[in-house]
């Protein structure tokens, strides 16, 4: 067994423990613990996905899914706050498409989940998760009302490793770009766009 093997097994085991922790906290209404456990589990899932990508095992399983349902679930699992007035709220933007689109549900969920957890750390009060579509693209967005992305992140076409910031380790963004690239259709590839609007604005764009 190599270090990578042990690492993969350990990640799996820690995720199981986090799952038990989250479920227990959930059943006694401890929302903060649930959120932290979900964030930690998400980070581990992203790590595992990265490991697979490095080994060429990260394939894409395109299926038919409804963006509005995914957004509702992602927001729903973070709903409710134990500290009235104190917590960052995560809400869904109105008008996410309620019809079928083609994408890998698990991978997109992983990318958005990581983006949401990062946004929660930077946000002042609100994180808004949304989806929209035009003729050519399906776009998922995560925006917060915090200070926005640092300039070097906006400029960098590929993120330097090791730049740990309020926006995470960079793992999430690396993975987001890989997942976007895995979605291609009609000669168009998906992409990730980082912008500052009223705060950080993350877009995952997939060809439809």
């Amino acid at each position, binding site marked *: 067994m190599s270090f990578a093997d042990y690492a993969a097994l350990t990640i*799996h085991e820690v995720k199981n423990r986090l799952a038990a922790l989250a479920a227990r906290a959930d059943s006694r209404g401890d929302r903060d613990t649930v959120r932290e456990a979900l964030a930690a589990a998400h980070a581990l899932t992203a790590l595992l996905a990265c490991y697979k990508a490095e080994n060429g095992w990260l394939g*894409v399983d395109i299926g038919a899914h409804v963006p509005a*349902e995914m957004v509702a679930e992602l927001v729903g699992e973070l709903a409710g706050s134990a500290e009235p007035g104190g917590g960052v709220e995560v809400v869904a933007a109105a008008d996410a498409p309620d019809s079928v689109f083609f994408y890998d549900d698990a991978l997109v969920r992983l990318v958005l989940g990581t983006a949401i957890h990062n946004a929660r750390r930077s946000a002042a009060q609100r994180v808004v998760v949304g989806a929209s579509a035009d003729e050519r693209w399906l776009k998922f967005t995560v925006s917060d009302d915090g200070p926005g992305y640092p300039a070097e992140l906006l400029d960098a076409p590929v993120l330097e490793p090791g730049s740990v910031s309020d926006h995470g380790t960079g793992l999430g963004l690396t993975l987001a770009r890989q997942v976007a690239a895995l979605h291609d259709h009609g000669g168009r590839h998906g992409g990730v766009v980082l912008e500052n609007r009223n705060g950080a604005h993350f877009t995952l764009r997939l060809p439809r």
Partner: protein
Amino acid sequence: MTRITTYKDKKLLIIDDMPEMRSALRSQASSIGFEQISVCGNVRDALDTLRGGRFDVILCDYNLGPGTDGQQLLEHLRARRLISRGTLYIMVTAEKNYDSVITAAECLPDDYLLKPFTAETFRQRLERLLERKRRLARVDALQDAERWAEVVSACDEIIAARDRYLVDAMRIKGNALFMDGRYAEAEAFYREAIAMRPMPWARLGLARAQRQLGNNAARATLETLIAESPQLMAAYDLLGHVHADEGNTEAALRVLDSAAARSPRSLNRLRAIASVAEEAGDYARVQDSLDKVVRQTRHTPLRDPGDYARLGKALTVTDQADKALELVDDARSTFREDGGGPALAAIEALAHQRMGAPDKAAAALQRALDGDLGKLSPEALLTVANACLASGDSARGEELLKRAVQTNPEAKAVQLQVTRIMSEHGIADHAEKLVSDSVQEVVQLNNDAVRLGKEGRIGEAAAMLTAAADRLPGNLQIVANAAYALLVDMLASGSDATRLENARRFREHLRKESPGHRKLADIDALWARLQPEEGGG
């Protein structure tokens, strides 16, 4: 958009090997309104619980401890019709486990829930899945009844509506065309689906159809699929079989080995490797794969006497008869209750024969033949048949081979094995005839019974089917038809103790072996009419 369901009257079964997850899941489920919750910590308990009644929702963890997983359990349940498609089966996983996205569409869970999840996520997901079940209810019922032509037209209606269940319906339709033997239509249909989007299930379906059509494009289709979706283990399995069909066992084993390296614990893959290796005469490889299968399944209900039989055979062929005898001892303790007996005695006979001890071989074979052969799986019957042929009793051996074919006349794999066994014993020349005659006899039997029924000679049909059901208790179609015919006959012309007892016996046998059998409801209704005091019982 969605209606809010109340879960008060819904029955939920939670299967998880970790006690803290069981209790956590239970409290999450009750927090969203479930009141009827059963929990099981292992496959054995789950099977007992499922035999005891119907559940609306099964929430099953993918990892169920050494040797088993939620996918294998689902396959076991579907293969034995222990649950219908009306039951929601949700797999809980720690990561999206593509290894579990295996082969046939009929063995997919309704959904995957990634751990950790909140009660709210569970509720939202359930709402959606129940909505989908309602939309697909008719298609599901037709699939359970294996009325594939009707499945196809029911799917066409949903496809024409172009709503969010479009792709679900397409997936089911492709599988139904395949199951109905309409391979050319399936091929064209999957091509259309791929033109819409290259979805992995559609490419896999295309390759399955191409393989059946003898089209060597199946290989290229699978190579494309593997390049696009390297995580889709089913593609490797199928490519292995395609290579084996082409006689290229070396390439077949190379593909299967590369898949096994990625998911070393998959029983299906190890069994696939063993069967290709057996065809190639590579018994060392058979031994290696089945050793692992036997070790993994030893203490679980998923253990299969067939694995022991094939491993035992590989050991005897490779002059390790002493190991084969050890395997038999080991198996004896594993299969105490469930009829592994005759097959094990047959392996023992083969091993003794190989070790040059014909007396011991004859004694072991006698024990095999004295056992209850009616309960044996086709695989086990083949082992006993093999031992008979090895000892020179070809009449008995061929009779058992015939019975193995007739237990499930549609199982091509059994027919191939019959042919292989016969060629190993130098009687390949009439293998084809034995197989086709055996199949024809069952077809003829059913046709005759139908004809007699139409002519109003239901008593004769019932007598004929009763004899056949006693000879082939593993053929549940015949057992069901026998029970049905007996009951119709008695309702028409009065009952007597013998026929009543036979009907009762066949009905019980069917219920035990296949609680979800499509004819059971009809049989129960007739039974209730015959014995109003007992109700539907």
